[in-house]
């Protein structure tokens, strides 16, 4: 039915081997779109934190240069204006005794005097 040339041609065609099917992909932890999104989010979050840290450091340095140190304890005491928290912090760090003196002065005017015999603070102090 088929001649010899056909058979030879068939053998030639058979020398071309069809490609095997590729294995089905296995869902990996690192290859899913969701995991990529999480990784991108993590990088963004770390970047934001780093930027915020740098910003805080820069602001604190500028505050140092802006003259927080320039106010002396005597000036603070003489001033009727309430000093700000950074000023007080700087005072506490640099001049401990002046800061203690400042607190004592403040305590006189801000804490209750415990003058009454039945005041709560005096009762508590006795206990």
């Amino acid at each position, binding site marked *: *039915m088929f001649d010899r040339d056909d058979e030879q041609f*068939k053998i030639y*065609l*058979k*020398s*071309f*081997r*069809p490609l095997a*099917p*590729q294995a089905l992909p296995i869902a990996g932890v690192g290859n899913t779109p969701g995991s990529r999104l999480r990784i991108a989010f993590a990088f963004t979050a770390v970047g934001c934190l780093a930027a915020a840290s740098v910003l805080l450091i820069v602001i604190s340095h500028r505050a140092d240069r802006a003259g927080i140190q320039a106010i002396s304890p005597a000036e603070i005491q003489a001033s009727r204006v309430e000093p700000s928290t950074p000023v007080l912090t700087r005072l506490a760090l640099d001049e401990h005794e002046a800061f203690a003196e400042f607190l004592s002065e403040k305590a006189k005017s801000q804490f209750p005097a415990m003058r009454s015999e039945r005041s709560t603070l005096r009762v508590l102090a006795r206990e």
Partner: protein
Amino acid sequence: MPPTDQSMPPIEGLYRQYGAPLLLFAISICGETSRAQDAVHQVFLTLMETNNLMNALDPKAYLFASVRNFLFNDNKHRKRNVGIEADQLWFTPPDRDHAAELNLRRALQALPEDQRQVVVLHIWGELTFAQVAEVLSIGANTAASRYRYALTKLREAMVVKEKASV
């Protein structure tokens, strides 16, 4: 074609033995490598679930017919036909002769679909004409005559391309 390992489960052995010609057959029908791979995998997955292959008289012909039926049903579902991809490899050529692979692929693509399927089933699927007839639901003589027409056209096309490339 790799021999079937006796220690393997039957379906895995069939996959290793007939996976490549089944894929080629699927590509020759649908024209898309990725869809053809899906079809082959889907057929084997279904066989693993249903174990229908054990009841088949001719498991080899059954596999090819299953792939063909899957693609026809899938075509109805999609309601579209895609042209054959031009740049996807179908074969590993002898002696890495990729020009010859391209020639063969183009010659196969140029064949009418019914002839292309017969050629693929008979040459690379190693099905007899009776089995080809069963898979394609045609007579064995029709299968044989389609094969002869296809082989003649293939040879002409490949000789012309070989001469053109020299």
